[in-house]
């Protein structure tokens, strides 16, 4: 916790095995989430990205190994205590029918409230700040059902922001969004990280966006971490072929100078190197 090199990590997984019923998804996995950075987890469908994220957020208890938050076993901590330090936006949260944006965002204050402390000045301030940061203040009175996909996603992020946790986990926050809204959401993530110093972990599908926004990339395949580190080290033509089975050329992104994966034409070559 106090060491500066390598970057300290408030949230880490230590030899975890994650399983649903009998199906083991992840086994003996180690991960340190670097503080104050944006970590992006990438990997093919069903490689265990979301499962890993759920276990980091205490939603899934490892059947072996442990997840530590600030050095304590996360599964022995009170749920509320975890919720004050770590926020999570799940893949498909459900908005109750007819709920207003402000009421939804206000629910992010839950871990800071008590039975007879239902709405303090700091609750009001945090919700206002979250709405402002996500540019949804003028939507406050609207019903969530009426919003576009991009607006709705910003509102959900606002809810997680209102929780005021230094650690924020986002499970595929850009799914179902068009390219403009994907960029909006990720710019917002970057702002949160740069201006407020929040540690963010994001699961993403788009490798190029992952490279552009991540300080630290974690690449997963079949429940294992294949590589992790800065994008330029992790995302290479070789690693993309190994992990995704996709032949590609990796060049420098002309805007951000991060790796840019250009898929090769998969049909023109013989398929022997797929094996």
């Amino acid at each position, binding site marked *: 916790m106090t060491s500066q090199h390598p970057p300290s990590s408030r949230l880490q997984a230590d030899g975890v095995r994650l399983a*649903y*019923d009998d199906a083991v998804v992840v086994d003996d996995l180690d991960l340190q989430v670097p503080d104050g950075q944006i970590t992006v987890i990438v990997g093919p469908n069903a490689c265990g990205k979301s499962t890993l994220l*759920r276990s980091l*957020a*205490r*939603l899934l208890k490892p059947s072996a190994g442990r997840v530590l938050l600030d050095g304590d076993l996360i599964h022995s901590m009170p*749920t*509320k*205590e*975890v*919720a*004050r330090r*770590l*926020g*999570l*936006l*799940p893949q*498909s*949260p*459900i*908005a*109750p*029918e*007819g*709920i*207003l944006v*402000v*009421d*939804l965002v*206000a*629910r*992010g204050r*839950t*871990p800071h409230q008590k*039975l*007879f*402390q*239902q*709405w*303090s000045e700091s609750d*009001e301030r945090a*919700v*206002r700040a979250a*709405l402002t940061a996500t540019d949804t203040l003028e939507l*406050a009175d609207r019903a969530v059902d009426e919003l576009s996909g991009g607006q709705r996603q910003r509102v959900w992020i606002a809810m*997680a922001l209102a*929780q005021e946790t230094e650690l924020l986990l986002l499970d595929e926050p850009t799914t179902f969004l068009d390219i403009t809204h994907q960029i909006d959401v990720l710019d917002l993530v970057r702002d949160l990280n740069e201006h407020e110093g929040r540690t963010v972990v994001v699961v993403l599908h788009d490798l190029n966006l992952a490279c552009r926004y991540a300080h630290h990339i974690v690449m997963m395949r079949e429940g294992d971490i294949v590589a992790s580190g800065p994008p330029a080290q992790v995302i290479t033509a070789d690693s993309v072929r190994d992990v995704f089975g996709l032949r590609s050329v990796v060049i420098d992104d002309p805007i951000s100078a991060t790796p840019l994966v250009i898929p090769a034409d998969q049909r023109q070559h013989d398929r022997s190197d797929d094996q």
Partner: protein
Amino acid sequence: MTDLRDEVTSGAGTRHHTAAAHVLLLRGRVIRWSGFSVRLDVRSTSVCVVLCGLLVVVSLWSISVGDFPISIRDVIATILGNPTEDSEFIVGTLRLPRVLVGIGVGATFGMSGAIFQSLVRNPLGSPDIIGFNAGAALGAVTAIVWFDGSPTQVSAGAVAGGIIAALAVYLLAWKRGVQAYRLVLVGIGAGFAVNAFIDYLITRAEINDVQRATVWLTGSLNGRSWDEVRIVAVALAVLGPLAIIMQRRLDRLDLGDDTAAALGINVARSKLALVLVAVCLASLGVAAAGPIAFVAFVAGPIARRLANSPSACIVPAAFVGALVTVVADLAARRLLAPTELPVGIMTAALGAPYLLWLLARQARTGAL
């Protein structure tokens, strides 16, 4: 909506020139007092006040009418402790407990229905549809038929039956978690099975017990005494506050289990507690007046619409349930006077069309 906003604005407008920036974001009012704060939804509160007023009016009316009419003034005087010669027996022994039981069971059913419908995320998830009330009825009938039970024993039987039914339905519907539609379908099936078993018990019982059990099974407020008032009063006094306190958790669970957990709610424990409270509420309602059909089923949706709120509306649902039951009982007594119908027939006549409409709509939208 706009008038509420205005009210809110005026509440926060004291800090004058920053008023625009300080308008309370939330609908409703916040009452703050030395470190404590309570949120009050103005519309929900008004709805409750209006429903409460209606409830008092209908109750007084219901007590006053009958084969032996008593003026409203005498009714009030009797309740306040100055009975006339006739009114003491008719009001104090016959009609007042009847109305109070109606209010009480309506409230327990309304709360229980609102909790279950929110947990299951489906209006069909109410305890009278998914067999929990049938389970409670089986427990109560067993107590009546086998033990010739006292009101306390009937209550205990009902609660035990309700919990066992809930447990059975839950386990049967379990398949890597519980899906709403599975729970509803399994629950409806379980309700039929339980009712068949009740019929069997009735055929094997003493004729006097059969009489007592059958009237009770239709859901009737006829002949309710202070014993039954006591059952629902205890139920409401103990479980009501618990339900109200837990509404906060219920509303977080409505965002999905993962989101609720991320907000610091202990999902498994909260659900268990909510189910227990809701089953006990419904079961004690059943113990007092039988499985009055559809009250739990209609109260929640009506309350939500009246309060125009996305929350579970447990308190408004209690008032709606009470009002529906008392009105239905008044109608059941007077529509075919002097013949009295059991209140359950009346509520079924009201609730069944709504059920059909809802089934048709959910079948069309694919929710079921």
